[in-house]
């Protein structure tokens, strides 16, 4: 004997469950599509996919994505410390000295940076760095990446610092520590795992950023440049460029590069999850 209320309830649960499952389908479809297409390309190219430069559009050889691979790591690794230092100091300021106008301004502005479209960051860096330097450069890319990852790092760090219970601070003050020592000896060590996972997520985000690099790093695909004033390339940029070309070979390379990018992202994500789990124990 089912009342209409009971039936409605059942239908509702069925609806919620099926839409929820449906909403996660794209995730699996994306991963499978990238894996299937990417593995074929990388298998065809072999290890040279990681050591070669991209071929001419009509050649038979798949070539590789070495310049983009190097460039991605290069600019992300250089921008990361800049982001981390700026965001960490800003988040210490706004969590430890919360009640003054500068802290509040820093808090609001750092968070509103997140709503600036990344392509706008790219345009502004283009006019302020690329134009005066008379050319694209890894440095411009580094600056753009630092700018876009700053709000994420700031949010991660201030969440980490706020997650430390107030009694730790009080205990430190009660034995006569000043705020600097409290931050350095108590707060940072206590929240260090969360901070490290925050840094990893910021790294993942910066690594996958495309729009901020469009008008900054240039698209130097002939080789590897160590000089920070010289143009370089990045994996997301290469994918973006190659999927919009009409050449079949370039589209294949884009799939391979997408697999590399996705695999790197998954690796970081899984290690973050493992690290967070250890915190709970």
């Amino acid at each position, binding site marked *: 004997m089912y009342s209409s*209320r*009971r039936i*409605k*309830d059942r239908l*509702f*649960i069925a*609806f*919620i469950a099926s*839409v*929820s499952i449906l*909403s996660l389908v*794209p*995730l699996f479809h*994306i991963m499978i*599509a*990238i894996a299937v297409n990417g593995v074929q390309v990388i298998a065809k190219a072999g290890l040279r996919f990681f050591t070669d430069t991209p071929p001419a559009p009509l050649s038979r050889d798949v070539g590789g994505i070495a310049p983009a691979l190097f460039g991605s790591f290069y600019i992300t690794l250089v921008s990361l410390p800049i982001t981390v*230092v*700026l965001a960490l*100091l*800003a988040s210490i*300021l706004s969590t430890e*000295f919360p*009640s003054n106008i*500068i802290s509040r*301004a*820093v808090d609001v502005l750092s*968070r*509103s940076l*997140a*709503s*600036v*479209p*990344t*392509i*706008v960051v790219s*345009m*502004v860096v283009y006019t*302020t760095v690329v134009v005066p330097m008379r050319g694209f450069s890894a440095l411009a890319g580094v600056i753009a990446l630092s700018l876009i990852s700053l709000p994420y790092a700031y949010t991660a760090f201030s969440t980490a610092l706020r997650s430390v219970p107030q009694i730790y601070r009080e205990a430190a003050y009660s034995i006569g520590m*000043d*705020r*600097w020592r409290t*931050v350095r000896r108590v707060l940072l060590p206590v929240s260090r795992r969360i901070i490290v996972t925050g840094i990893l997520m910021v790294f993942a985000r910066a690594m*996958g*950023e*495309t*729009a901020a690099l*469009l*008008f900054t790093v240039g698209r130097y695909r002939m080789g590897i440049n160590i000089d920070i004033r010289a143009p370089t390339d990045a994996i*997301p940029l290469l*994918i*973006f460029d190659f*999927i*919009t070309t009409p050449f079949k070979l370039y*589209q294949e390379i*884009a799939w391979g590069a*997408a697999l590399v*990018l996705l695999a790197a*992202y*998954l690796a970081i*994500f899984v290690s973050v999850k493992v690290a967070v789990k250890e915190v709970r124990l």
Partner: protein
Amino acid sequence: MFKSKHDRLFFISLLPTSITIIGLLILFLIILVFHASTSIGVFGLKLFIESIWNPENEMYGILPPIIGTFIASGIAVAVSLFFSIPLSVFTVEFIRGRTRELVSSLIELMSGIPTVIYAIWSLNTLAPYLKTYVMEPLYEYLSFIPLFSCKPVTGLSVFTAGIAIGIAITPYMAMLIAESYRSIPIVYREGCLSIGATRYETTKILLSLSKPAIVASTVLGFARAAGETTIAAVTVGNSMSLSWCLFAPSYTVPAIIASQYANAGLYVYAESVLHASAMVILIATLILSFIGLKILDEWRRRVVV
């Protein structure tokens, strides 16, 4: 406010980096407004109400990308709401323990996937699928409705961009909605259950309680969709046209910047026009995020206490 000289020194030593951040954002706005003002000064309001992109003759009107951005973001938010509300109810209300942990991890995983990965998938998988199974049937049977009145030729259109962006922002919105849904005090849920409400009725009441939070998430999602570049540039079709039809290739502001900015330096005003369009979107997203965060804060203070 400072207990000792050390504290003051510490505070002062934190200032330079913080002022750098504040300065950067102000510098940002100044540069953008400065560059945009050249073209706004020359073309006036006409720039925003006409539809023309002809840099060779220095004629510009950026209405189509602006409208395209709003339509694509509107579709994206609608798609995303359809998925993210059930998804957040599902994770908070219907599953427990390990399953919930797994599903929330998957949502988190999905939200962090680089947008260029969504772009390559949308272009090669989603667009052809939408063209064959959604756009063509709609055109065939409902073409008397102006929105569906043109034949989908390539499968790349505002409609495709909207759906693709909608899928990409679903995890973000689901996390926002789930967070506010979870923060509703347990007394409301207990109250519902104590008068014998079914889960459907409980959820309905809790959802109506969190309506302001859902509105705020929608506004924030809209802001994010409007700034989305990679997916839009690949799926929107890149064509300067203004029509009622959702299936015609069009532009969004980030898409036109992505495709035209590199060559804009060759012409006198093109760069400035693109800065003007970027300024429109930047102001829109800043205002929207501000409103969204404000509604969310107020709601928290009122309901969560």
